[in-house]
């Protein structure tokens, strides 16, 4: 058997309003070359200015990964020629990145493990080159948007572990609000390095894997690559140190055109940006952004509200959902009911309407209102589901809905007594049977009353009034 060592290099597109070194909008999907200026187009004479929001977010991620935060983060020029890179160097970090020596403790398929984080560094993204027939087109909208690179130590051993780590990481950056985590659209990108060797022999030849556009592909690509390298070692064949691409159509990794020599990026300190030295006010801003992270929140929700494992996993998966849940509970809803409604009826309606919880007409106030109505018996379960439907369709408060549709349960004893009397009059035979001590027709009479009120009458009350009436007249 062999031992595999997998390290991940994750690129995170930060959710800042503007680009990292100029004031252009950092937005995607706009008309090509509309979010550009002399700075991000690399015009002669311009200079980069560091975006505070980007550096705050960079330190925030480093902090959330328990890194040692740099007291003097140095930007460096990474030199290489490529048409989508306007300056033909990328402002990046090498010797003194934002964060170093961090760690993540997480559950990797049953066992609690520690994944050491080598470094977190901030850099600028390049533009995009598109080949269309015999012309090449360049769009610089993405050029200069902030990119955070996170490098783990090679301690993961299987594709599944990499997938779990990536899922954990994605959830974390979404919690921190620094990235939307969309791997298909490339706002979260993951490359891996894999080496396989006999146990105890240390790392083998390192192979880089690129082009894995989802966490599922990361799992599949790594499983393939570990098996491929193990197969080579079995046959006594060498493992070439190279870069391979995941081919999602053929489910395998393929060697990229090999380079004759290693790239020499000729890094040197960026003379246009002095080292960034965080002061107390800056670090305070970072701490303010440090929200409760998913793992901590999971533990707390279980302890505080008694949620089950599946329920809590569903609730904490999205920060907005967990926030929604806790707000609903704070407004008086029963926690288990809230979790269960969010995981079933609400989820079903969101899927059907194709909207996110945050954009839907449902608010914590409305859900809490509905659940309180249900708990207090003013409506019963079936009506509650109908109220939710109407709420999604019309965007009204539950109170308004039940008033407009007169869906509130009939709980007025006088009104119920009147209904009971009418039912007795209309069903002499059944009434007589009950009076004679045969309880069988009680259900039938309750059913008649429910029918007459379209289900609004409170069944227990109807039953007890009915029994009372028929007992009295004996």
């Amino acid at each position, binding site marked *: 058997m062999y031992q595999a060592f997998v390290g991940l290099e994750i690129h995170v597109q930060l959710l800042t309003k503007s680009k990292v070194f100029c004031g252009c909008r950092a937005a995607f999907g706009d008309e090509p070359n509309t979010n550009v200026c002399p700075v991000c187009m690399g015009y*002669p*004479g311009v200079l980069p200015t560091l975006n505070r929001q980007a550096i705050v977010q960079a330190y925030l991620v480093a902090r959330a990964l328990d890194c040692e935060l740099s007291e003097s983060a140095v930007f460096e*020029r990474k*030199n290489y*020629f490529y048409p989508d890179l306007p300056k033909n*160097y990328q402002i990046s970090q090498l010797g003194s990145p934002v964060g170093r020596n961090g760690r993540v403790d997480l559950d990797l398929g049953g066992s609690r493990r520690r994944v050491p984080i080598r470094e977190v560094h901030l850099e600028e993204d390049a533009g995009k080159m598109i080949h269309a027939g015999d012309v090449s087109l360049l769009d610089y909208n993405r050029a200069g948007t902030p990119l955070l690179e996170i490098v783990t130590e090679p301690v993961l051993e299987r594709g599944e572990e990499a997938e779990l780590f990536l899922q954990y990481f994605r959830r974390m950056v979404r919690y921190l609000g620094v990235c939307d985590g969309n791997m298909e659209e490339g706002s979260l990108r993951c490359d891996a390095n894999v080496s396989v060797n006999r146990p105890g022999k240390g790392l083998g030849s390192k192979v880089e894997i690129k082009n894995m556009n989802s966490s599922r592909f990361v799992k599949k690509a790594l499983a393939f690559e570990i098996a491929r390298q193990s197969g080579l070692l079995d046959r006594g064949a060498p493992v070439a140190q190279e870069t391979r691409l995941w081919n999602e159509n053929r489910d395998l990794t393929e060697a990229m055109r090999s380079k004759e020599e290693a790239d*020499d990026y000729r890094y*040197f300190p960026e003379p246009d*940006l*002095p080292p960034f030295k965080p002061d107390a006010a800056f670090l305070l801003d970072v701490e303010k952004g440090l929200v409760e992270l998913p793992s901590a929140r999971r533990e707390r929700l279980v302890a505080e509200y008694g949620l089950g494992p599946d329920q809590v996993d569903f609730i904490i998966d999205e920060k907005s959902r967990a926030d929604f849940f806790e707000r609903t509970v704070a407004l008086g809803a029963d926690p288990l009911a809230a979790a269960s409604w969010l995981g079933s009826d609400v989820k079903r309606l969101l899927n059907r309407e194709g909207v996110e919880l945050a954009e839907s007409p449902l608010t914590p106030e409305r859900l809490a209102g509905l659940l309180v109505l249900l708990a207090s018996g003013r409506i019963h379960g079936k009506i509650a589901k109908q109220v939710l439907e109407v709420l999604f369709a019309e965007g009204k408060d539950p109170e308004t809905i039940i008033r407009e549709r007169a869906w509130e349960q009939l709980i007025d004893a006088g009104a119920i007594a009147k209904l009971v009397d009418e039912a007795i009059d209309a069903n002499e035979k059944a009434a007589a049977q009950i009076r004679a001590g045969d309880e069988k027709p009680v259900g039938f009479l309750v059913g008649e009353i429910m029918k007459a009120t379209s289900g609004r009458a409170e069944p227990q009350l109807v039953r007890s009034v009915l029994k009372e009436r028929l007992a009295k007249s004996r």
Partner: protein
Amino acid sequence: MNHSARWSNVLLSPDRTESYLDYARGWEKRIGSFLELSPPVPASPPRGDLAGIPFAVKDNIAVEGFNLTCGSKMLAGLKSPYTATAVRRLQEAGALVVGKTNLDEFGMGSSTDTSALARTSNPWDTSLVAGGSSGGSAAAVAAGIVPFALGSDTGGSIRQPAAFCGIYGLKPTYGAVSRYGLVAYASSLEGIGVVAESVGFARRVFEVIRGIDPLDHSSVEYLPSGQTPPRPRLGVVRGLAGLSGEIERAYRRAADLARGLGMEVSEVDLKTFDYVVPAYYTIATAEASANLARFNGIRYGLRPEGTENPEQLVKGARNRGFGDEVKLRILLGTYVLRSGFQDRYYVRAQKIRTAIRNDLQALFGAVDLLLLPVFPTAAFKHGEAGLTPFQQKLADRFTVTANLAGIPALSFPMGSEAGAPLGLQLLAPAFEEERLFRAAESFAEAVPLEHPPGYSEEWRS
């Protein structure tokens, strides 16, 4: 003040602009200091401390509406889409840009002869170079076309042409003037400065352009000590070798004059002096190799026709767009930054740079000002009869010290010999530009400013 009064009216009416152009064009036929000359006709009288005063800008500094060629075929025809902070501040003070001046290609040279676009000559004698790289700016001021001009100084590029043309040239403290809008050659060494016909103009312009700029993170708040010693201690360097006779005489004469002007003159040693040129060229070319990488013919600038793919386009643009001196420096810079070689070159040069700073800091404990030649010779001749590119680089030894240390230096005229002006420079600790101005004013009282033949003020009155 009466100086500016004469200058502030020269562009106030179409008639005046016409006589302005007559004077300027008369000179330009001989000296070619401008790459672009188009004085504005202001719609309303300008306001501000420098209201109506014309000035020229070296063509590696951005002015919206003007070209930004850097003297290179690579950027011939490029219109700047924005304005440099230093220029904007002067415009806000009412000064008027009349044009863009010639320079060595991307500021790389000491003669302005490496410009790919035009030839600039010295107003004193057109067989002589104007110096460089801010040769166009210095020549235009010496000829009396403008009272001051902006230049840039990476290793002497303001002070040396100022000395060659017999005017004043200030290289400010690093970071005192925003570099936003200065096309980068060696970012950690260079800055925008001023060449001027008088100390007064140099000071007034410096006061307008200095100060922190949010668009340049390497700019700093201007915080001088506010103390100018009434009897400054002047250091003169012992055992300077390789000076031409006229420069050696000028240097000795200045030291003698200084005593007469009440300065305390003492001899000092510059221990790091032998290392400044290699350290300078290692750092400057390393930075240049990255700074000039952006010129690839894709987004602007020279674009060769008929290329098959992006790689061919970039190679073609750089091969045809850059001159030999630029290519040489890019190659040198790429070489010293290679992995495995950085320790031997780039890192070592940075260590030398730190040693130079420390050397000067210690020196400025003992003296208030340092007197140095600007260049080992007076202005040399164009072409073969002048200095080889290698000799020119060695000759930068007196000027690059201030750039490596980030301190201010001012070159000032020291008369002329055989029809060529002579200049020397004063160095001061960071932010002590005022010391330089005061000392230069003292020297000016003893050595009256000389003008090249053909210089005239009459058209201005």
